[in-house]
């Protein structure tokens, strides 16, 4: 083969959804939205958040003091922005290996669950804070799932199991918080399809067909409405 790799890769840009495919997916997405509509208006709030420049300037101008003080901050408190947008970003940048990234994702997921618990104890878990925590937790769990898969692909099963054990322990300790945030997590124990639910009970449905049999008009599988479900 003598063709330039970059040119070959760029030729794939011509590939796109066909008109009917795009319309079909759009229609299915609209159907999902009708069955699980938005509960929050984003007229004055962006769907995509820009980095918090003020928090960054504050952290940089005060050296490490502000960053340290931010560690215990909870959602809704002024230093929380520093915690998630500075401290945790720095930690992310320093995590170079897949193991380190996986460990970090699990730690961050645990932090979000602890924050949920603390806010609930203080009766300060407002609907707005709940949605913020839910979104952040979902990102950390998707990140953890991705990194665990990467570890298993690389044959680093021991570390993958360690991360999964950490997550299980977090979920066991903060089951009420998971329920509050409407996030469900399950772990696949073996290739035969036996799964443990987040509460440790066995989900003994075998194979694909016995799970979530709802299908949309296009014949594609639906998902549980109202809950974020993440399978490890």
């Amino acid at each position: 083969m003598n063709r330039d790799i970059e040119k070959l890769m760029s030729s794939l840009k011509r590939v796109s959804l066909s008109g009917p495919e795009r319309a079909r997916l759009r229609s299915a997405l609209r159907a999902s939205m009708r069955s699980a509509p938005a509960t929050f208006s984003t007229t004055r709030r962006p769907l995509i958040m820009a980095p918090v420049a003020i928090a960054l300037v504050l952290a940089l101008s005060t050296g490490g003091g502000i960053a340290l003080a931010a560690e215990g901050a909870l959602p809704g408190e002024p230093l929380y922005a520093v915690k998630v947008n500075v401290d945790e970003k720095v930690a992310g940048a320093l995590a170079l290996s897949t193991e380190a990234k996986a460990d970090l994702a699990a730690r961050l997921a645990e932090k979000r669950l602890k924050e949920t618990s603390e806010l609930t104890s203080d009766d300060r878990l407002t609907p707005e804070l709940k949605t913020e925590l839910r979104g952040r937790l979902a990102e950390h769990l998707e990140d953890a799932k991705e990194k665990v898969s990467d570890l298993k692909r690389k044959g680093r099963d021991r570390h993958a199991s360690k991360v999964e054990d950490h997550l299980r322990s977090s979920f066991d300790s903060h089951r009420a918080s998971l329920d509050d945030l409407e996030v469900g997590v399950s772990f696949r124990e073996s290739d035969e399809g036996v799964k443990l639910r987040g509460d440790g009970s066995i989900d003994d449905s075998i194979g694909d067909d016995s799970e979530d049999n709802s299908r949309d008009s296009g014949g594609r599988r639906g998902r549980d409405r109202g809950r974020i479900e993440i399978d490890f």
Partner: protein
Amino acid sequence: MGHTDTEERFMALYDAEADAIFRFSFMKLRDREAALDVTQDVFTRMWEYVRRGSTIEHFRAFAFRVARNAITDHVKKSRPLYEHELGEGAEDILEIAAPGDAETKAELAGLLECLSALPEDDQELVTLRYTEGYPVKEIAEEKDELPNTITKRLARALEALRECVGVVPTT
């Protein structure tokens, strides 16, 4: 029935990113129907994340992460492709990329196999840079990395791909 502003803004994001997610899914699965399933799955999950007001810092980067996980889930449930095997609809896609050019189509098929052998992060980097055409600086910002780090990783990934497909680099 009117649609809320949240829904309309989300559909705009779908319109902007659906093709990229579909292409990425196809490149990893080499099966058009599977790529369609994954694309729908990704946006359905993304809707679940945003519909209650959760903010996502980088929508595209998060969508690609969700896509990688959805692809992993799909692969767990499906028979893996054999070496040199292409899934349903793949020939049509290669024809779109290289119309009427059998040699290039074969090279593309080989390249996709080699791409799947790269580390997951590098597969995504190569796709974002050379298929989607995003600048290094933008990719670095989404991934919280230094641009120089991304440049080096891209160079190593390209080298690995060249070695796999047997390309003599042109200078």
